[in-house]
């Protein structure tokens, strides 16, 4: 049984102009101890998914359908009180901006011990010991002094380490990391990624790593789910998805990333843009931009189908269908 199972998740935003569906029939699983990357561009719905799992979806957004099962227990329909117990203890969170993730008015030590005491029921001295151990583990030099410092006394990279310590404080089984390195310099990014990977391996924590940066995924994740317009377009092991993608969108995405040693005259580009929420085309959401589109794509929405080493939501991989003519683009 997987640690986290998401089935047919739907996230909606009721507005006065109608209901906008931001995540539409999303399904994936995370096994214990694995790192699943959820990659996608702006508007794909990846951050919303992370927020929905821990119950931090901002109203009027709401889960309109589907289930989120964590450790065999359904959590999408829990009361806020019950969710609070799970948040922090079982599921930790790391957000993008370390500046706003920490309360500027409390010392770092106080924020750590607060979490530890609430979830692990340790008394003052033991909690502080554990906090110190955590700070050392995330690589804060001089932890004994810095535990009593305020967040503004740390640099960006150090703050993010503290946030990681906070997320791991109660030994959660799953950590949801939403763009944890985007706001950091490249050299610090590398440090933080390495740290996250090592810690989660040591603690046996699973990670749902949400990001738009394919490079971070390639370095950190075991499996990756590529999201497009609120659904999974392709999912598989990182190696397979990155080296031999199957879904035309993933292919386009990988081709559009500039690489050292790669093309220098022109990048392979995907024309057009991701459809706005509420303006998703009929059939496969990617069909207006796809270079291999044919008639069926415009009417029927594909489910995830086995495609070589990965699974792709694309009719090209429907083995059951008879060979069909490909329509030229347009």
């Amino acid at each position, binding site marked *: 049984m997987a640690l986290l199972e998401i089935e047919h998740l739907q996230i909606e935003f009721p507005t006065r102009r109608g209901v906008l569906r931001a995540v539409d029939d999303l399904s994936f699983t995370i096994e214990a101890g694995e790192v699943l990357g959820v990659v996608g*561009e702006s508007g794909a719905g990846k951050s919303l998914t992370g927020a929905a799992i821990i119950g931090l979806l901002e109203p009027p957004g709401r889960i309109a359908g589907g289930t989120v099962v964590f450790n065999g227990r359904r959590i999408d329909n829990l009361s806020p009180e019950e969710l609070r117990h799970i948040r922090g203890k079982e599921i930790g969170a790391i957000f993008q901006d370390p500046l706003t993730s920490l309360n500027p008015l409390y010392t770092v030590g106080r924020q750590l011990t607060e979490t530890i005491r609430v979830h692990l029921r340790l008394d003052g001295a033991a909690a502080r010991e554990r906090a110190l151990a955590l700070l050392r583990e995330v690589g804060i030099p001089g932890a004994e002094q810095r535990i009593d410092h305020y967040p503004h006394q740390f640099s960006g990279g150090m703050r993010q380490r503290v946030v990681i310590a906070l997320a791991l404080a109660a030994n959660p089984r799953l950590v949801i990391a939403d763009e944890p390195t985007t706001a950091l310099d490249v050299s610090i*990014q590398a*440090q933080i990624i390495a740290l996250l990977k090592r810690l989660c391996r040591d603690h046996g924590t699973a990670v749902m790593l949400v990001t738009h940066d394919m*490079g971070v995924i*390639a*370095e950190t994740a075991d499996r990756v789910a590529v999201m497009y317009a609120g659904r999974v377009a392709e999912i598989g092991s990182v190696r397979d998805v990155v080296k031999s993608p199957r879904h035309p969108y993933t292919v386009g995405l990988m081709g559009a*990333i*500039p*690489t050292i040693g790669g093309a220098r005259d022109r*990048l392979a580009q995907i024309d057009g843009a991701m459809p706005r929420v509420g303006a998703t085309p009929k059939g496969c959401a990617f069909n207006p931009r796809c270079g291999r589109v044919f008639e069926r794509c415009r009417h029927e929405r594909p489910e995830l189908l086995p495609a070589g080493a990965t699974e792709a939501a694309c009719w090209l991989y429907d083995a059951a269908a008879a060979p069909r003519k490909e329509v030229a683009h347009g």
Partner: protein
Amino acid sequence: MADAGGRAPFLAVSDLARYFDVSPPLLNRLIERRGRLDLKAVDGVDFQIRRGETFSLVGESGCGKSTVARLVVGLYRPTRGQIEFDGADLARMKSRLEQKPLRRRMQMIFQDPYASLNPRWRVRDIIAEPIRTHGLRTGAAAIRARVEELLGQVKLAPADGEKYPHEFSGGQRQRISIARALAAEPEFLVCDEPTSALDVSVQAQILNLMKELQRKLGLTYLFISHNLAVVYFISDRVGVMYLGRLVETADAATLFAAPRHPYTRMLLDTIPDLAMTGRQRQPVGGEVPNPIDPPDGCAFHPRCPFANERCRRERPELRADAAALVACHAVEEGRIAPEMS
């Protein structure tokens, strides 16, 4: 410094510096006996750009590359140094009027597609502003025609001129910014992280567009970025900056194939391994020091595995080393083995 063809460089920057006064207020200084404090955002930078080429400045936050961009384009006045554009020293011209014809030939594209367009103006007015300011076309009809032509050049529809910026996506707004910059008919474009705020697929569109425009219109680019892969794609020559100084300058092929300066090597090492070679990365420890209080000598020495006593005392100058210019004592003394990647 003339190039092989004997022509003078299009843009030549020498000993360019910009300090910001971050002193505490006068009262505090008197009472607490604190001195003046200067933030040396740019501290002595030299480079040349030839006509038609793309020169990139790359570095992490706080290295001063954005400040250099703003100095070149005139948004800041230099604390010292010279900026020569097509032979004319910009710093010496004092009045706005004197600088105006020269400034027209140099335009800028900004990083934030949301803040770089006036939200209250229609797109056609935004693009027409340079045309009107410099009198490049007369008559409403001529201006409208030119705006449509520019919209077409950046692959937007003529009808988009009637809309407001908030009706467009980030990538489309960046196209509008490019169209506005082109409206002044410039020869030189300073691009300050134009794709950093964009998604990968949109970034590819914009980068391709910029390359195409460069070919078609014969533009010269000064390209600022923190993304080395983007820099690899778009540049002819590259300058690496750290804490307000240039540490290495070389043409792109040389820099990426055989980086010399330890910081350049470290930066290249941080690029994620998309080829999935399983290469183990060595993240260099430490963080970028506070620019208000930079280390003595070589700014990189606290993080450098090759630092020696001289590095702690003496600031290295840019010296030629084979095909590159490198500011590093260890390279000069031959203490670093050349690395081929």
